[in-house]
C-alpha cells in the first residue's frame, strides 16, 4: 500500500509552500482585492520562473515533463494561500485541454507559451448565470469563424488564448465543439466583470466573427470538455483541500488567541465541535482528492467518478471551513480588514468554477448507474 505522494513530490510541495509563504501573504492577496488588477503579476511570474506552470507539460513543448501528481501538490499550496494568479485557467483548463484534445500543431503553437507563462490561457464555457449545456450554448462556430458572448471567463481580461465551447450545429450533446481562439485578434472584445471574489479576475468576452481552430473533433466538444473538467476537478479539489486546511488553521489559531468569559473560546464545545467537523470534512476531502490524483495520473477508467468524488468532498469541506472560520472569528470575521473573507470568497468561487456540487452529484450517480456496483 503506497497511497501517498513520493518524497520528490513532497519536496516540490515544500518548495511551492515556501515560495508562497514568502511572496503570497494575505497582505499580497489583499493588494489584488483592493485594486483593479486581474491577478498578482509578481507572484505569477515567480510561479512561472519556478517552472510550476510547465510542470505537467511534456518536455518537447517546453515543460518539465512531470505528471498530474506534481500539479496536485502545487495546487494544494496555491489553494492554501488563496493565490491570486491565473494558474487554474491557464494550466488545468487551457493547457490540459490542448494536451488532451489538441493536434500536434495546436500543441506546438500554444503549449510552450503556456508552459513558460509567457501567455495566459483560459476556458470559456458559461454564457451567463445558468449551467452551460449543449442546449443553451449560443456561441457558434462555423467555417473557421466564432461568434458569440461568454460570461464569466476566468482571467478573461489577461488571457491570450481561450478554449471556447461553441455550437457547431449538431443535435444533443453533439451540438457543441471546443475551439481554440487567439484573444489578441480584432473582433474580440472584453470587459472585466464584478464577481464575489475580486482576487481572481473574470471578464465578459464577445467574439464577432473571429478566427478559431477546432480542438479535437467536431461534435465531440461536450465529451472533451467533460474530460478536461474531470481533470481540473481533481486539481481544483487540491486547491480546495489547501484552502480548507488554511481556513481550519486560521479558525483554530483565533480560537486559541481569543478569550471570552475568562476562557479561550477554543475551550467551548460549540467551537471545538465545529473545528472537529472541519477537520473531519478536510480528511475525507483529502482522501478523496488523493484517489482522484491517482486515477488522473494513471489515466484510469474511472476518472469521472473519482473526479466527481474529489470535487464534491472538497467543495463541501471548503464551504464549511471557510464559512465557519468567519463565524469563529465573530465580529472581526466579517470586516474587510480581516483575512477570513479570502477563503469565504474563494471557497464559493471554486465551488462554482466547474459547475455546482449538484451538477457533479448528478454526474457521479450517472457513473454509478453505469458501473454495475448494484
Amino acid at each position: 500500500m503506497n497511497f501517498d505522494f513520493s518524497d520528490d513530490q513532497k519536496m516540490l510541495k515544500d518548495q511551492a509552500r515556501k515560495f508562497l509563504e514568502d511572496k503570497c501573504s494575505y497582505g499580497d492577496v489583499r493588494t489584488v482585492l483592493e485594486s483593479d488588477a486581474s491577478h498578482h503579476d509578481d507572484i505569477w511570474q515567480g510561479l512561472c520562473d519556478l517552472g510550476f506552470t510547465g510542470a505537467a507539460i511534456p518536455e518537447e513543448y517546453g515543460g518539465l515533463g512531470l505528471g498530474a501528481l506534481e500539479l496536485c501538490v502545487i495546487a494544494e499550496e496555491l489553494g492554501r494561500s488563496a493565490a491570486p494568479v491565473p494558474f487554474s485557467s491557464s494550466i488545468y483548463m487551457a493547457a490540459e485541454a490542448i494536451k488532451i484534445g489538441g493536434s500536434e500543431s495546436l500543441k506546438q503553437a500554444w503549449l510552450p507559451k503556456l508552459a513558460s507563462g509567457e501567455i495566459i490561457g483560459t476556458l470559456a464555457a458559461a454564457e451567463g448565470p445558468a449551467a452551460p449545456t449543449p442546449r443553451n450554448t449560443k456561441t457558434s462556430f462555423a467555417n473557421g469563424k466564432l461568434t458569440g458572448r461568454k460570461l464569466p471567463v476566468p482571467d478573461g481580461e489577461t488571457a491570450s488564448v481561450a478554449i471556447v465551447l461553441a455550437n457547431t450545429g449538431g443535435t444533443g450533446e453533439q451540438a457543441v465543439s471546443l475551439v481554440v481562439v487567439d484573444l489578441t485578434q480584432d473582433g474580440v472584445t472584453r470587459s472585466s466583470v464584478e464577481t464575489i471574489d475580486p482576487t481572481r479576475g473574470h471578464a465578459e468576452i464577445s467574439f464577432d466573427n473571429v478566427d478559431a481552430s477546432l480542438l479535437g473533433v467536431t461534435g465531440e466538444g461536450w465529451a472533451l470538455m467533460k474530460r478536461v473538467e474531470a481533470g481540473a476537478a481533481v486539481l481544483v479539489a487540491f486547491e480546495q483541500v489547501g484552502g480548507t486546511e488554511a481556513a481550519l488553521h486560521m479558525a483554530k489559531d483565533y480560537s486559541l488567541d481569543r478569550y471570552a468569559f475568562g476562557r479561550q473560546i477554543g475551550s467551548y464545545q460549540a467551537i471545538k465541535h465545529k473545528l472537529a467537523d472541519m477537520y473531519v470534512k478536510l480528511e475525507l476531502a483529502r482522501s478523496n482528492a488523493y484517489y482522484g490524483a491517482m486515477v488522473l495520473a494513471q489515466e484510469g477508467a474511472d476518472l469521472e467518478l473519482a473526479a466527481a468524488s474529489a470535487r464534491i468532498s472538497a467543495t463541501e469541506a471548503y464551504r464549511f471551513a471557510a464559512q465557519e472560520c468567519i463565524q469563529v472569528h465573530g465580529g472581526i470575521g466579517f470586516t474587510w480588514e480581516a483575512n477570513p473573507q479570502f477563503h469565504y470568497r474563494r471557497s464559493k468561487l471554486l465551488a462554482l468554477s466547474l459547475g455546482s456540487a449538484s451538477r457533479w452529484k448528478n454526474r457521479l450517480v450517472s457513473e454509478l448507474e453505469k458501473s454495475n456496483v448494484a
Partner: protein
Amino acid sequence: MDFNDTPEEAKFRSEVREWLAANARPRDPNNAKAGVSTKSEAERLVRAKEWQAKKADAGYAAITWPTEYGGLGGTSIQSVIYSQEEANYDVPRGFFEIGLGMCIPTMMKWATPEQNERYVKPALFGEEVWCQLFSEPAAGSDVAGLRTKCERDGDDWIINGQKVWTSGAHFCDYGIIVTRSDPTVPKHKGLTFFFLDMKTPGIEIRPIKQISGGAGFNEVFFNDVRVPDSQRLGDVGEGWKVSLTTLMNERLAIGGGSGVDYEELLKLARETELEEGPAIKDANVREKLADWYVQSQGLKYTKFRTLTALSKGQVPGAESSIGKIVSGPKMQDLGSFAMDIQGQGGILQDTDESPMGAAFQNQWLGAAGYRIAGGTDEILRNIVSEQVLGLPQDIRVDKNVPFNELASSAKK
C-alpha cells in the same frame, strides 16, 4: 382562531391608516424589495428627521411611552399595528431605532427628571440622534469584558479606550457608554455608565468596512474624553446593572431577517436552466424551496403567536427569540444555493448580469455578518437553552476573579 383585530385594535388601526394616508406616500408594491435609496445618507437623515417630527407630533413615534414623555401611553399591540401600517408607506427608516429603542429607555430609567426633560423630547422628535457604545474589540459576546476605562478627575471623568460596532456614530448627537472604573474587582462589578455628547473633544469615529462592502458600523476611539459626573447613569461600579436595561430592550428589538427568500428563489428556479432542464423541475431544488418556505412561514406564524400574546396583554413567551437563529443560516444557505443554481455564472456580482441585481450574492456575503452581529448563532443558542429551557450556565471562571487577573488574549 383568526388573524382579526379586536374591536379596539380595529379602531386604532383605522385611525393610524387615516393619519398615514393623510401624511405619507404609499409604497410602490412593485418595488417592494428594491429598497435601497439612491439618496445620500445625509439627505436621507434630513428626510427622516422631518418624518420623525411629524410622527411624534401625532403621538405615533413612541406609542407605548407615557404621555409625559411624549408617548401615547398605548399598548404593545398598538405599537405593532402602527408598524404594520407604516410598512405600507414609503417613509424613511433606520436612524432612530437604537436611540428610541435602547438609549432613551435607559435614560428614562436612570437619568434625572431634568435630564429627561432636556433629552427625551428632542430624541423623540428626531432633533437629536443617539447611539450606543458597548462592544469593544476584545469584548464582543462577552460585553462585560470591556476595557475602555474611566478615571475620576474632579467633577469629571476621563474616558480612554475604544468601542466598536457602533451603528450610526458618525451622525449621532449623543451616546450612552459603559466603561471600566475599577479593574481590580470582578468584571461585572467595576463598570460605570454615562451618556455623552458625541461632539466632545477626543472622540474619533472611523467607519468599519464589512466584507459585503457595507459600512454602517463604526469604531469609536476615546482619547482623554472628558465627561461630567452629572452625566453618569447609576452609581459608580453599577454600570452593568444600567447596561442590562439597555440590553433588555435590545433583545426585544431583534427581529427576523429580511432579504431574498423563497419567493425570489422560486422565481429564479422558474427562470433558470440546469443541465437537466428547468431548475424548478429538479427535485432537489423543490426540496430546498419547500424547506425554506416552511421555515419562513414558521417564523411568520411564530410572530403571529407573539402578537396574539401582546393583543391579550400578555408578555410574549420566549418563542420570539428564535427568529435570528433560524433566519441567519437560512439567509446564508439560501443565497449560496441560489448561486449554485446559476452555475459558473453564480459568481457574478455585477448588478446588470446577475439575476435580481445580484441580490443572492449580496445576501450570501452579508449573511456571514448577520449570523454574528447582535448575538452569534452560538450565543443565541446559549440564551435559548438557559433562559427558555432552564439549562445551567456553562462553568464561569470569570465570576469572582478581579478583572485585571483574568486570562485574556492581551495578557497571555
